[in-house]
């Protein structure tokens, strides 16, 4: 009986700590429902008692194109990242390439390069190629956030596939490509999910590449949509926070549907700029 009471005590402390940690998230939601005339109230309302959906109406009116662009860029980044890194992971895990260790090291080092440096280099190159303010250009740049991490995840995961299985396929006459496509890739579904989730989330959240490479273009992602709101000295904070809430939805969906993949990804060497 006593120990039971103690676990509930810890749960209470845990709830309190989580509440403190997530307060900024609650505040974002609260402000997104606040009426314009209550925005400057002092002290501010702790609950959206006189809530309004005006902020969300503004999102629907003004931010849908940004959200669409972000969706396209996110999906493009996912496809590019998986297509590049799954074969590489297979080779590094199972085919023992000469020089594979060096490549692994380069991938590790690549994660350490600050995004702002990459952005400046991409800017110089895209300026010459005329790729500034283009969606494919931003997809390629965003994929650099995820590819090294993705190769590491795929390699780690595919190392766990039993060698006998691949040997058996080889005995049956399957080449390396066939083995990869029909055995390794289907067995690595979890790794594909993890990589896709992170690639999507990172490109959806990217601000550095967006602000340097597509700023002012006709297709801008949602991060720039929010940034322009703030930059214009906009006082409609309910609209800004409503956009922020909508921009957070992918993170929320991922957390609810795929929490175990997220924890796996963080632990396997989380990288975030």
């Amino acid at each position, binding site marked *: 009986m006593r120990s039971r009471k103690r676990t509930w005590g810890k749960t209470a402390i845990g709830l309190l700590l989580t509440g403190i940690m997530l307060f900024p998230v609650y*505040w974002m939601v609260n402000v997104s429902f606040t009426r314009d005339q209550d925005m400057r109230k002092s*002290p501010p309302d702790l609950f959206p008692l006189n809530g309004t959906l005006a902020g969300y109406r503004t999102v629907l009116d003004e931010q849908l194109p940004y959200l669409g662009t972000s969706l396209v860029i996110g999906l493009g980044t996912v496809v590019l990242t998986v297509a*590049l890194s799954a074969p590489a992971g297979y080779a590094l895990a199972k085919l023992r390439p000469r020089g594979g260790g060096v490549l692994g090291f380069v991938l590790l080092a690549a994660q350490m390069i600050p995004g702002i440096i990459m952005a400046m280099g991409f800017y110089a190159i895209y300026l010459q190629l005329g790729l500034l303010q283009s969606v494919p250009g931003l997809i390629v740049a965003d994929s650099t956030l995820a590819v090294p991490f993705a190769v590491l995840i795929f390699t780690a995961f595919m190392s766990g596939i039993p060698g006998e299985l691949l040997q058996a396929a080889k005995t049956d006459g399957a080449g390396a490509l066939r083995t990869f496509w029909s055995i390794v890739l289907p067995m690595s579904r979890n790794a594909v999910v993890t990589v896709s989730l992170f690639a999507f989330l990172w490109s959806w959240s990217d601000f550095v590449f967006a602000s340097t490479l597509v700023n002012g273009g006709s297709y801008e992602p949602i991060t720039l949509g929010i940034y322009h709101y703030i930059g214009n000295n906009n006082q409609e904070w309910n609209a800004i926070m409503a956009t922020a809430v909508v921009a957070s939805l992918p993170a929320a969906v991922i957390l609810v549907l795929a929490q175990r993949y997220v924890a796996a990804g963080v632990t396997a060497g989380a990288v975030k700029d």
Partner: protein
Amino acid sequence: MSHTTQVPHRRPVPRKSGAAPTAPPPQRRRPSSQQWAAWAFLAPVTLYLALFYAYPLYRNIDLSLRNYTVRSFVQGDAPFTGLENYRIVFDDPTFAPALLHTVVFTAVCLVFQYAIGLALAVFFNQHFRLSATLRALFLVPWLLPLIVSASTWSWMLNSDSGIVNAALHAVGIGPVNWLTSPSWSLTSVIIANIWIGVPFNLVVLYSGLQSIPTSLYEAAALDGASAWQRFWRVTFPLLRPVSAITLLLGLVYTLKVFDIIWIMTKGGPAESSTTFATWSYQLGFGNLLPAFGPGAAVGNLLVVAALVFGLVYVRVQRKQALS
């Protein structure tokens, strides 16, 4: 998934790369057809690394060694000036404050993220009701887009209408100009960045805690060790390898923090929250007349710092993998 409980130093990939240079080539000759297949699978990513990592980096070095103007940037005929851009950067009055802010920002963020993350990891390691769910919720700040976190903090720290000043007012403390006063802006971005970094520390340290055998705690408890002693005599020493990895990775990632600072303060007011990352962006993109050369030079200094600590990280990780 198989590596849910993995801690970083158990990652197979770096271990492999770590073993490769020291171990002699395998005795069995690898069939050359397999080598061809292997490199065929690696070709796309190798090409990709060359085009989209090595080349932008090279362009960045090139930028830092030439005297670029907007015109010569487009035409590509900027004169080679050697280390002139680096000299300009070192002599710039912004250099010393930017260096100081970068060091303070990184150090303070690391200490608090690690301490809070460790405390939470120890707390959640006790497995009470709902602990798994609550631990998952702690990931939220880490998953949110940085622009969302940064703009939310901006509004919370707003001088007139922010909830933080309202709360301070309630306990009798006068309003603080969090983002608009030079003496507080660095503190503000540090607070926001700690909030974002805690989840990473929590998750990695928590997985490290799980690999400490419970029998050790039971033995310590039998010997009459208090909870406090068990933490300092058992948990903390056994967690040292994971702590080293967490801190080093945190260091590399905190050095390059840009979004948060830029969105909240743009490095201001009066450069009071300028770090190397925001200074580099400011030089290259923040002004009407871009100074690409000096901007790239500042960026390259940042790359060198990140790579130095990155190499230390790889070394530590290798040593742990071998032992």
